[in-house]
């Protein structure tokens, strides 16, 4: 069993700065947990506390059933992959891979077997006698991953392992690490993984679950799909998804039929009955931030509901190939809509007029309390 549990884990630096605020997190056996957040959110610090490279100021870290707070890194049954590979420059790839086993006094033939097995998994066999400086970035990172696998740890830790690679290599390494995780899992080996990144694509594609952090606090832990669809708060909503979710300062009032009308500027948008019910239960004030993702804003047509239209002035358009990011201003706010290229070509490229009617799919929108920043429409 290699479940990882953080119980009220805190980190306070010697200058009194509290980097990690009593976080609780449970990572199941074999799970691929991604930790994401902006730089300085203490995701790496948390990982390093897990690895034993950073002392723990409060709370408990458990790997399996044991509290490992005071264990040395080597005794925790972990392996870590670093951002800049951290290969030993004076050792060949083979020596790099086998170093941990050699220190553990594993017999030489056993070391060779395990090293060869890992090398094969990562297609490192032809590189075994090279030194790290003779490797490309992608190869070096594969060696670093190999070094982790060779040790057969209970938990794999990754600290932004792909940040130093170019975009294309990053994409292929992403798939490779995911596949490796599945492969280890299916061969019944320990595969619990904690993966720190600041790249949403990595988080969304690789993670079984994602833990979003901000300033040493966990904002939400959930599956990628849920995180995207049901962000618990303003931060998660804004952090996950590109282009970002549109955030509009608005207020609401109740209509005669009991549903809510969201107002901003001169526009009023009608929320559906079910959303209105939820908001009414949770709302404290009528001041909210309305969140709506760019893909839920469309160009209005004759079928669009009249109470969900907003008139905007197009500021600029970005061609992404299959779709356009259309930026438009409403009053002083600038919003973004993702619109299919065929529709843009038909409706926007042939017209001089900058003014357009946009249809907001309010069933897909979110309302956040402006003070607590909590999502009150869930």
């Amino acid at each position, binding site marked *: 069993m290699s479940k990882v549990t953080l119980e009220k884990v805190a980190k306070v630096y010697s200058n009194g700065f509290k980097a990690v605020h009593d976080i609780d997190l449970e990572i199941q056996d074999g799970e691929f947990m991604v930790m994401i957040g902006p730089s300085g959110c203490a995701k790496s610090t948390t990982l390093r506390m897990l*690895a*034993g*490279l950073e002392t723990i100021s409060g709370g408990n870290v458990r790997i399996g059933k044991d509290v490992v707070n005071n264990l*040395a*890194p*080597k005794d925790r049954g*972990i*392996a*870590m992959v*670093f*951002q*800049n590979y*951290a*290969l*030993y*420059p*004076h050792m060949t790839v083979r020596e790099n891979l086998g*170093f*941990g086993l050699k*220190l*553990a006094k594993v017999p030489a033939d056993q070391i060779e077997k395990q090293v060869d097995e890992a090398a094969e998994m990562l297609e490192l066999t032809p590189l075994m006698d090279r030194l790290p400086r003779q490797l490309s970035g992608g190869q070096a990172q594969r060696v670093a991953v190999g*070094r982790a696998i060779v*040790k057969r740890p209970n938990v794999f830790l990754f600290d932004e392992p792909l940040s130093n690679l170019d975009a294309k290599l990053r994409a292929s390494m992403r798939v490779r690490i995911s596949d490796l995780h599945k492969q280890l899992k299916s061969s019944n080996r320990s595969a619990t993984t904690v993966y720190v990144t600041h790249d949403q694509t990595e988080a969304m594609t690789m993670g079984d679950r994602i833990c979003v952090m901000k300033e040493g606090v966990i904002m939400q832990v959930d599956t990628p799909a849920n995180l995207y669809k049901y962000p618990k708060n303003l931060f998660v909503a804004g952090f996950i998804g590109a282009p970002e979710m549109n955030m509009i300062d608005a207020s609401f009032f109740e209509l005669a039929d009991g549903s809510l009308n969201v107002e901003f500027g001169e526009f009023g948008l009608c929320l559906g009955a079910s959303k209105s019910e939820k908001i009414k239960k949770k709302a404290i004030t009528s001041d909210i931030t309305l969140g709506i993702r760019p893909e839920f804003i469309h160009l209005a047509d004759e079928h669009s509901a009249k109470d969900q239209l907003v008139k905007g002035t197009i500021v600029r358009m970005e061609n992404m190939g299959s779709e356009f990011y259309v930026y438009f201003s409403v009053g002083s706010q600038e919003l973004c809509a993702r619109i299919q290229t065929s529709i843009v070509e038909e409706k926007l490229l042939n017209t001089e007029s900058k003014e357009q009617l946009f249809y907001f799919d309010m069933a897909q929108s979110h309302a956040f309390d402006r003070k607590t920043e909590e999502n009150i429409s869930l």
Partner: protein
Amino acid sequence: MMISRIFADQQKSQEGLSAEAIKTLRKQKIGAFFRYVILILCGAVMLYPLVWMFSAAFKPNYEIFTSLSLWPSEFSMDGFINGWQTGTEYTFGRFFWNTFMYVIPKVILTVISSVIVAYGFARFEIPYKKFWFVTLIATILLPSSVLLIPQYLMFREMGMLDSYLPLYLPMAFATQGFFVFMLIQFLRGLPTDMEEAAMIDGCNSFQLLIYIIVPILRPAIISVALFQFMWSVNDFLGPLIYISSVEKYPIALALKLSIDVTEGAQWNEILAMSSIAIVPSIVVFLMSQKYFVEGITAGGVKG
């Protein structure tokens, strides 16, 4: 090499250039010519004494101060032959041997102790670390002659006079702050990721030093060893104070010896032996030149 390549590139690209561009190129060439003439002249001025020493070693004694020519009019090996015999009962080989008897332990002890102390300073949390570090730097600034008398008295009490121990024993305690400082700077420039990876791989602090830090520090360690080697071979004051019997004299004292014993010094012998005396330093330097340059630049600028 670089320059010739630049010239070759320039020539290659000269076809089809405007008159203006050709003029600029010619100006650059003339500039380069003057630069090299000045550099060569300066180099010659600096090398002249050394070349003079070599040439004088082959001259008969009476010609040394009478002729300006670098080329001996009468080529003679007497300086080398007689110089090697020395005026004492020992040959010059003995003095070479004596030199290495204290230089080699000194270099080895310096490297080991400095690496350990630098590792401590660069990687561990020590109470009042800043204070200790400042103290270390202060010892670099302290003139070594200040310590001569107390140190002499101390070694006299310990009964170590007229042995090589006072020359190298202090090195076992990282007493040369400069080397420690140099290694600390080098270590500070190194990312700690490798060491963390090694800790996860199962290294304790000592294994970390042996398996990871020392191999990575190699260029800096070689620089330390080289500096210490050259400075020690050249050291005059240390042996002069602690070594009293001629059979234990190192090169530095032996050379002085030949000036003392006869009134009219045999300059050709002295210069011949001086020429031989610098050979070990030059050989050692040439052997490790690559690492040496790497070490001093890496220590100062980056890891």
